[in-house]
Each structure stands twice: as structure tokens, then as C-alpha cells.
């Protein structure tokens, strides 16, 4: 009996999530709720210079400050770390130079926050200012001084070039060539919970770190490296996160600083960042300029796509090498694109580092692609929904860049939102000022490759059953509000026939739980879910063998349901679940099982081909309705229809919450959110500061600004997913931004090829239109970039084997988990 061919009792039923009670009654303990006796408090002194050499740091006045226990500087932190092995470019406190306003240069540990804050004011830092790099144009134009001593050249962190087939002739041979430049402004995660960490020595003298992190395993590794202590002597406990969205996926300087301070002082040390500091930690959406050249035939078939992207990376690597590849990885998995070239470039600038935000690197180019498709449909005079339906990628296929498409419900998603929104009655038929727009998307159900290249499982689950009938499930996965604890217990409850509330979850604790790589890349449900099913099935086998003997019923006839184990032919003939555990324990001893999950190998074997593969992709389609005032450009979004191919909704109440949360975040990105900066006049100042690092002036919609949302979950179980489930946490965000822009065109006939779509831009486009100029706002040109020679990979349909014909030979041996060789498939 496998996990998918039995009648389901928990899966698919909208249930109260297992952690709901704790959350609504305020009993969930977030990192900032941890109050330990003898705790000292930490504040960081951050750079006020955007780019400068540190000449001197005088901490003598601060050290003598009232209530001050310790002042630390970069001297204490000689070892670099970072999330990707290819970019270990951060120190917990800056050593030689600072790279953005907000880079931490010193830390004060004191009696309380106020004392630590006051002592920070007593630290005297002497800087020697360096040239400020405020934009990718600056960084491309000037290679010196370099913000980092590594990177492809000058201030270019990464420049990559991949070519799948002869794309130039495919585009030239097309009936139409579309060439469009788009810009997607950066924005940030804005979790309600500000990052917080508490570190202490446990009674054995080992380090314990509680932190609001999405990735305790990576923090564990970073602490071991940066502090040079054995990982086995470090325990990381990921507290429930009050939202993450990718912003708590890097190991952070404040985590390493308080860990070190706890070791030095042997007292608990706590830090809770201010909202401004959260904006400075950032790691959010990269600003991306992009150019799409697409060849299309009269029948709507795409012949080839040539994509260039330019990412403003900010001051550090973070996930940036992977982000760069992600801006070009998923263009091919939604629609048939037989030939494809992708060139991506990430530059360093003196701003907070960009990284992964919900959709990691893919929403920007998804925006460009979906808006360009809308323009193509308009030009070919076909309905954009019909147009897309004709070119949807086929199931169980390999794309030109060797991404493996499994199940694909995209056509059904499109059909569903078209039907429910009344698209056919609305599109190009609403009065001036009202419009509808359609867009689609796809996302990974977990990255196919780990960040640290190795052959180890991506997720591990342990199960303990005891004679009380209680079940405890252990997994390193982290509850960040998305409901991973609920998925974990429901998988176990489903397989063992008990109620989810009978199962206790212990998660995100590196001492107690097997490794799960973390809550990122929409990987948890699929990977942890499969591991949990395996562990539970192994437990069920042990129980079934024991009960079969006692009841004298063949194992195949035993059913686990309703907290009982019974004969399917005589349901009254059975034992309770607790009796079953006791029978088994008496027979085989203490019952514990494990499960683990490793994704299938990816098909692409070229450098960079590790970014994009996944066990299976989710798909989404959305229709957005807008109201635009033609006089002022004012825009409102009253309604959104969205359909998401989720494979199977394990808990539909939670899945819908993820879809609606994505719509919310998408509306914010589409209409107002901007992580933007002030550059003062260079003749007067070097300054480069975040324009408005506050929740008042960084505009994000409130609940009152939300549209009405009509959500559909399209369920066709995917063989790769636990009970058929695919991801839902990120994909539904992606179509919202392009659908808004497309709807604006339907409403008032102008193109805003730039995110966010604000009233000012709409009005500017309307005025351009009225003046007989192109009815558009957005970037006009894409800069010349000295791209490297492309890796030439023949598409599978043209007989390729997934390797680049011109790739230099790889190093022959690869130490398992060396941790320094490569990352997330970013094999360099």
C-alpha cells in the first residue's frame, strides 16, 4: 500500500492548524519572548558611511560606559562566512572597510538596551571615504575601487551566459520579433516580527542559539565556521518566525555577534533588531533591468527567446549568485520556448544586500515575460488567454534548458480564472478606466540541489512511538507561519490513522531534530512531507506486523484509521492505536523510525544548470481587475481571481491562506512597495541612505486596501509530491504584478513596463499618449555588458545530452559536503 492509493482522512480536509491555539492566544514564544535570567543586551553600531575604509575604531569611552560589559569590533571576527559557499564575503563586524550605510562595525553588550545604545554613541570610528556606487550604471562604469576583492570583474559580482540552441537564427526567422525592456524595482519582505536572537552557554558549556531564522541548519554551519568551534558543540533552535518570506534565510551578523558574546561572557545575550535594522539586513527582491527579445510566428508559436537581466545586488553576495541564475531559470517551464539564451549580470553597489524574497529572482523576469506576452497577443490580435493556452508547456517534458516539467495544470488554471472572472465579457469591453489583465507563473516545489553541494538527504524525519499511544515527530523544518508543523503532523496522522492533534511536532532544533535544509524555495511540504511519510510508513509496517500476528489478520487487510488498527473485512475486529503500539513494543522493543528525502537528479549538467530544477513545478494563473482614473492616474484593484495548480491541497484552509497572502504581497509589489535610496548631491556628500526605512513611509497595503479574492485550487496529484502535493507558498505571488500592468493597459491603453505601477507613472504614460508619443513608461535601453562567451548547450529536442559543448573540464573529485566547492548548482 502506498501513500496515494488509500482513502484519505486528514489530507484534503480543511483543518484548524496544530499551532493555531498557541498563536491566537499569544502563547507562541517568538525569539523576542525569550527572557532568561542574567540576560545582557546587545546593540550594534552601524556604519554611517556608504563605502569607506575603517581607519580607526576607538572603543575606550564605550567600554567605560555605564552598564557596559563588552565592546566588540571586527578584530574578534577574523573568519568570513556567507550563505553560499561561493560568496563567503561577510564578517560579523566589519574589519577593513564598510560597504553600505548599516554595515555593522561594533557591538556593545550591556545591562539593558538603553545602556548599550548609549555606549554605541561613545564609539569613535574614523573612516576614509571611498567612491559611492549608487546604481548598476555606476558599478558597470567604474571598476575601481572594487567593493569586494572577488567577483567576475570590477564591481561585477557575477556575469553568466547560457545558450540553448541557435537562438539568433530562430528569432530572425520568426514572423515577428518583439524587443522590450522592463524594470522591476527592489522591495523588501516586511515580516511583522523583527529579527531577534538569544545566545547562551548551556550547562555543559556548549553554545545554544535561539533565533528567528528560516534556516537553522545553515546558521548552525555558519556559526561553526565563523566562530571556529565544532558544529557538534552548537545547538541552534529556530523559534517560530513571525513571517520570513526569505528575509531570515541568511546567517546574520547579529546572530554571530551575540553567540560570540555569550561564549565570552558566559551569560545569555539578547538582541532584537529595530525595524530600521530589518530594512538594512534586507536580502530582499533585487532591482532588475531586463530585456526580452522574442521571436513569434503568426500562429502564436514562440521560436526563441533571448533574455538579458541586470541585477543590483547591493553590498554583499548573499544568495545573489543563485538569484542571478533564477532570473533566467523558469522562463521555459510555463510556455514552449524551443531555443533560449539567457545572460544575467549582478553588480555590487553600496546598498543593503539583496537576496531571496518570495519567488527568489523569478518574479522580476516573470513580470517582463507576462507583460511582453500581453503585448504580443495584442499585436497578433488574439485573446491573451487563448494565446497562452496554445503554447502551454507539455507535461512530462524537458525544456530547452533541461528543466523537467512533471504535471502541469496551467491550462486548467487559465481556463478557471477566465471562466470565473467573466474574462470574455470584460476583456477590451469594459468602459474607459476599468480593465482586466491576465498573467501566469510557475514555481519550484523545492530546489533540486542543496546550497552546500553534497549527496545527503535534503530532509530528515524521526518518529517516536511509545506505549502511551503518543507519537512525536522530529524534523529540522522551521515553522515560519506557513504551517509546516501542521503539514508534518498531518502526514504522520494520515499514515498512522490518528488525529493530527495526537501527534507532537518537535522542529527546528539542531540538537533534537534531523536536518531539514530550511524553510525556503517552497521545499518543506514536498521534501519534509515525503520524509515524514516514509518514517510513518516504516512505523506502520512495524505495527502492522505485530497486530497482524495478534489479530490473525494478514497485513494487507489491516487498516489504520480513527485511532484504531482493524481488519478491513471485519472493521469491528481490531485494536486501538495505543494497543497496537504496545503489542509492537512488546514484540520488537522501543519503536522509532526515520524517513528522509533526496530530490531526483536534475537533467542539466552544464554550469548553472543546478538552479531551477525541482521535483515538480506549481502553476498559477490570475486575472486582476483594476479601476484607473484617466484624469489622475489613480489606480485601485477591486478584484482578483486566482487559480493555483497545487497538485493536492493537504490542508485547503492553509493553502488558501498562502494564495491570499501571495496576492496581498503581490498587490503591494505591483502598486507601491519600493526599497529605494537617497543619493545626496555628490559634490556635497557621499551619502547613500535607504529612503524610508520605516513601516509608515515604506508603503505596503493594509488589510483595508486588499481586493476581493476568488481563489481556486486545481488538484491533480503529482507523483513527486506527498499525497500529490506541490508548492503553494510562492508561485501565486508571481502573476499578480504583470496582471496588474496588463489590466492597466486594458483600462486606459497605456503600458507601464516598470514595477511598481503608480498613479504618477500611469498619468505620465497617458500624457505621452495624448501627445502622440508611445503610450508607455519604462526603461528604453539595456546597457552594453561585456558578457562572457555563452556556454553552448544543445536543447534536448535537438539531440542534446544536457552538457555544454564548450564547458571547461570539471574537477574530477568532489568531496562529499566539503562545503566550499559549489552551491545551489552555482558551480563555478
Amino acid at each position, binding site marked *: 500500500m502506498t501513500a496515494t492509493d488509500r482513502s484519505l482522512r486528514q489530507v484534503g480536509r480543511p483543518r484548524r492548524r496544530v499551532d493555531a491555539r498557541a498563536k491566537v492566544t499569544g502563547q507562541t514564544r517568538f525569539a523576542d519572548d525569550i527572557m532568561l535570567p542574567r540576560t545582557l543586551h546587545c546593540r550594534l553600531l552601524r556604519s554611517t558611511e556608504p563605502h569607506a575604509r575603517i581607519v580607526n575604531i576607538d572603543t575606550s569611552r564605550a567600554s567605560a560606559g555605564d552598564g557596559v560589559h563588552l565592546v566588540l569590533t571586527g578584530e574578534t571576527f577574523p573568519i568570513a562566512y556567507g550563505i553560499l559557499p561561493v560568496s563567503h564575503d561577510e564578517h560579523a563586524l566589519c574589519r577593513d572597510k564598510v560597504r553600505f550605510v548599516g554595515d555593522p562595525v561594533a557591538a556593545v553588550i550591556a545591562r539593558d538596551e538603553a545602556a548599550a*545604545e548609549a555606549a554605541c554613541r561613545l564609539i569613535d570610528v574614523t573612516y576614509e571615504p571611498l567612491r559611492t556606487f549608487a546604481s548598476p550604471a555606476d558599478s558597470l562604469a567604474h571598476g575601481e575601487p572594487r567593493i569586494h576583492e572577488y567577483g567576475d570583474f570590477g564591481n561585477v559580482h557575477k556575469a553568466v551566459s547560457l545558450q540553448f540552441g541557435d537562438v539568433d537564427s530562430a528569432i530572425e526567422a520568426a514572423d515577428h520579433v518583439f524587443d522590450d525592456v522592463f524594470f522591476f524595482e527592489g522591495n523588501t519582505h516586511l515580516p511583522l516580527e523583527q529579527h531577534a536572537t538569544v545566545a547562551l552557554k548551556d550547562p555543559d558549556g556548549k553554545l545554544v542559539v535561539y533565533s528567528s531564522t528560516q534556516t537553522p541548519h545553515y546558521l548552525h554551519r555558519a556559526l561553526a565556521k565563523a566562530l571556529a568551534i565544532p558544529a557538534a558543540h552548537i545547538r541552534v533552535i529556530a523559534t517560530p518566525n513571525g513571517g520570513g518570506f526569505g528575509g531570515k534565510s541568511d546567517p546574520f551578523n547579529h546572530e554571530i555577534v551575540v553567540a560570540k558574546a555569550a561564549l565570552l561572557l558566559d551569560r545569555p545575550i539578547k538582541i532584537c533588531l529595530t525595524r530600521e535594522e530589518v530594512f538594512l539586513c534586507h536580502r530582499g527582491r533585487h532591482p532588475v533591468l531586463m530585456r526580452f527579445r522574442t521571436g513569434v510566428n503568426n500562429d502564436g508559436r514562440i521560436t526563441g527567446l533571448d533574455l538579458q537581466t541586470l541585477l543590483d545586488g547591493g553590498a554583499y553576495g548573499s544568495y545573489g549568485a543563485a538569484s542571478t541564475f533564477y532570473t533566467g531559470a523558469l522562463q521555459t517551464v510555463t510556455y514552449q520556448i524551443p531555443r533560449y539564451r539567457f545572460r544575467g549580470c549582478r553588480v555590487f553597489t553600496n546598498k543593503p544586500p539583496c537576496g531571496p524574497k518570495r519567488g527568489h529572482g523569478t518574479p522580476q523576469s516573470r513580470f517582463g515575460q507576462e507583460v511582453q506576452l500581453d503585448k504580443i497577443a495584442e499585436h497578433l490580435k488574439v485573446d491573451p488567454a487563448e494565446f497562452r493556452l496554445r503554447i502551454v508547456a507539455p507535461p512530462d517534458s524537458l525544456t530547452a534548458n533541461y528543466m523537467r516539467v512533471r504535471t502541469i495544470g496551467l491550462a486548467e488554471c487559465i481556463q478557471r480564472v477566465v471562466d470565473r472572472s467573466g474574462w470574455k465579457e470584460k476583456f477590451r469591453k469594459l468602459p474607459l478606466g476599468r480593465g482586466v489583465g491576465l498573467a501566469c507563473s510557475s514555481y519550484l516545489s523545492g530546489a533540486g540541489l542543496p546550497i552546500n553541494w553534497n549527496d545527503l538527504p535534503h530532509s530528515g524525519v524521526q518518529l517516536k512511538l511509545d506505549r502511551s499511544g503518543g507519537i512525536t515527530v522530529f524534523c529540522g523544518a522551521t515553522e515560519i507561519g506557513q504551517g509546516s508543523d501542521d503539514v508534518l503532523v498531518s502526514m504522520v496522522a494520515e499514515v498512522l490513522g490518528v488525529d493530527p492533534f495526537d501527534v507532537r511536532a518537535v522542529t527546528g532544533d539542531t540538537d533534537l531534530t534531523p536536518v531539514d535544509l530550511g524553510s525556503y524555495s517552497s521545499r518543506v511540504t514536498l521534501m519534509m512531507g515525503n520524509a515524514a511519510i516514509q518514517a510513518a510508513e516504516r512505523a506502520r509496517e512495524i505495527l502492522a506486523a505485530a497486530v497482524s500476528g495478534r489479530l490473525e489478520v494478514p497485513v494487507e487487510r489491516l487498516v489504520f484509521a480513527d485511532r484504531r488498527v482493524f481488519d478491513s473485512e471485519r472493521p469491528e475486529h481490531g485494536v486501538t492505536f495505543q494497543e497496537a503500539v504496545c503489542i509492537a513494543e512488546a514484540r520488537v522493543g522501543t519503536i522509532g523510525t526515520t524517513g528522509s528525502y533526496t530530490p531526483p537528479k536534475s537533467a542539466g549538467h552544464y554550469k548553472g544548470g543546478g538552479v531551477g530544477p525541482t521535483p515538480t513545478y506549481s502553476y498559477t494563473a490570475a486575472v486582476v481587475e483594476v479601476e484607473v482614473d484617466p484624469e489622475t492616474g489613480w489606480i485601485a484593484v477591486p478584484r482578483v481571481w486566482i487559480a493555483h495548480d497545487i497538485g493536492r491541497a493537504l490542508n485547503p484552509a492553509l493553502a488558501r491562506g498562502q494564495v491570499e497572502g501571495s496576492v496581498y504581497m503581490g498587490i503591494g509589489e505591483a502598486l507601491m512597495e519600493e526599497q529605494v535610496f537617497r543619493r*545626496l548631491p555628490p559634490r556635497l556628500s557621499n551619502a547613500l*541612505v535607504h529612503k524610508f526605512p520605516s513601516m509608515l513611509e515604506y508603503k505596503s497595503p*493594509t488589510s483595508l486596501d486588499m481586493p476581493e479574492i476568488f481563489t481556486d485550487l486545481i488538484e491533480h496529484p503529482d507523483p513527486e509530491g506527498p499525497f500529490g502535493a506541490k508548492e503553494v507558498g510562492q508561485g501565486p505571488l508571481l502573476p499578480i504584478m504583470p496582471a496588474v500592468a496588463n489590466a492597466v493597459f486594458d483600462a486606459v491603453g497605456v503600458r507601464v513596463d516598470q514595477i511598481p505601477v503608480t498613479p504618477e507613472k500611469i498619468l505620465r504614460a497617458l500624457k505621452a499618449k495624448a501627445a502622440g508619443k508611445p503610450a508607455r513608461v519604462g526603461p528604453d535601453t539595456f546597457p552594453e555588458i561585456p558578457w562572457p562567451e555563452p556556454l553552448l548547450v544543445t536543447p534536448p529536442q535537438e539531440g542534446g545530452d544536457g552538457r555544454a559543448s564548450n564547458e571547461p573540464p570539471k574537477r574530477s573529485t568532489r568531496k562529499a559536503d566539503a562545503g566550499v566547492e559549489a552551491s545551489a548548482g552555482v558551480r563555478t
Partner: protein
Amino acid sequence: MMRLPSFQYRAPPTIADAASWLAENPSETMLLAGGTDLLPNMKRRQQTPGTIIGLRGIRELREIHNGKGLTIGSAVTLTDLISDRRVHDSYRGLFQAAAQVATPHLRNMGTIGGNLCLDTRCTYYDQTYDWRKAIGFCMKKDGATCWVATSSPKCLAVSSTDTAPMLQALGATVTLVSSRGARELPVAQLFANDGMRYLTRQPDEILTAITLPPNDGWRSSYKKLRRRGSFDFPVAAAAVAAKFDGPDIVDVRIVLGAVASRPLESEAAASVLRGKRPTEELISEAAAAAGDIAKPMDNTDFELVWRKMMVRTLVRDALHDVCGR
């Protein structure tokens, strides 16, 4: 989290006590009513008074009286103000303005007097100490340059009060009390067009009351531009009050909010309509005249060119509102 600097808190039982305590050291003392403006500013070290005098315990300041018109104590919360039927029925524009200040939570704390005296706002100024240090500070606090316009001899921070333009349009007066005595002046004279010295209130004076003239045929309307209808400060606003005789406008005042360091009254716009029967053409002409005097700068949300253009729309909409269109 961000912490308040330390200060001495004093809670006077009467206005006389408050005035005499304030007179002890006016330059180092600040008044606190709801605290929704002052306390966040203090956390950012924009203001660091040694002493705070809390006005919430003074009952007189929390009352609304009938008289010749309506007298509103300065510590009346915005929630209480918009719950008052007299305000709702007779001073519609004031109701609209107060109801659009911030959020319900902030209106529960914030007061009418606090909103009138609201510190001027600027995206170079409403920032933490470290942020301001990173730009070398600005003229309004700890620095010398106005970064909004580096050649400007004066601070260009923006008057961001919703109620002041409306009270000015309604012809309201304010009462200022000090240990030296009391004085009453029109709301228009409470403000100066200087982002730093935006109030004519003397450091030892307490704004104790706002007096509205009897309604007497006046209709009023307040239109506000902001990003989110649920939350934000104004980035442009139009306050219009007009006295009608049948269909004709006998008198009218048009005051703009959030486009200068003080509420900005357009006599030119008013004169277009005064003594006339308002036609669409006249309304447009008045709106254009009002729009001409608005000089928004690049120190709030939204682009300044668009904000300036929107002033016209706001004035027109407010005029339509008072004309019942």
C-alpha cells in the same frame, strides 16, 4: 526596539499649573497630549526634552462646549471629536479632516491640539539619529543644510496636519495661555511658512482651546491625498468652506494642506467664486488658481509634479462637495 530617552514627566491638574511649570524652563520642556507625534520623534532623537508636561489630566482641555459656535478643548481626542454630533452636523469638513487622521488606534490617543501643533514632516528629518548622521544631518535638527533644496535658506519641512487647513478655512481661532496671560488668535496666524519655526506659539504658551464660529450658512469639505486610505499623512489636501445664499456663494475660503510649511490659503482662488453662482468653469478656474500657489517639494511620498497637479483635483472635488455636486 527603539527606546525613549529619559525625561521628567509632570502631570499638572490645572491649566494654571501647567502654564507655571512650563514657564520654569520653556526651552527644555515640551507639552504632551496624545503623544502620537512627540513620542516617536523622541525615539528618533528629533526632540529630547528634559521635561514633559502631560496635559491629559486637565479636565477642561478635554471638553467640547457650546457657546457662540463651538469651543473644543485642545486635549479632546480625535475619536471624541468625530463622535460629536455638533461637529459632524455643522462642521462637516472638520469631521472629514479629523476622521482621516492616521488610524483608529492613533485617533484614540491623538488630540485636536496635537494635530494642530504637529511637527512639520520631511523624509530627510523623520528618521533615526543614525540615519540623519549618515546624511550629515539637516537644517531642522543638528545640521546646517536643507537637503530638500540645498540652496534654500529655510527649512522646507511640510505642514502635515489635516485639521489645521480645515480650521483655518472655517475661520476658527485658538486660545494660547501662558503664565503671562491668555490671547486668542485666528488659526491662520498660528502658523508661519518655515519648517523649523512653523508655529507662532511662544515656548511658554499652551494651546488650550479651538473656537469655531457659529455655522451660519457655511458648508465645508476636506479632500486629502495619501497613498493608503487607511493610514497615511496627507501629501496634499484641500480644505474648503463656503457660505451660501441659496445657490450663490457669498463667501469662501480655500486652504491647502501639505504643500508648504504651513496651511496655504488661496485668496486668488476664493475671489474667483466670491459673490458668484458657482459654475463648472468658475470651479475649474478657482481650482487652477489654488493649484498655482502649491509648491510641493521632494520630501514626502509621491512625486512632486504629480502632487502639484493633484492639488487642482482636490480643490475641485472639495468645491463640488460644498456645492452639493
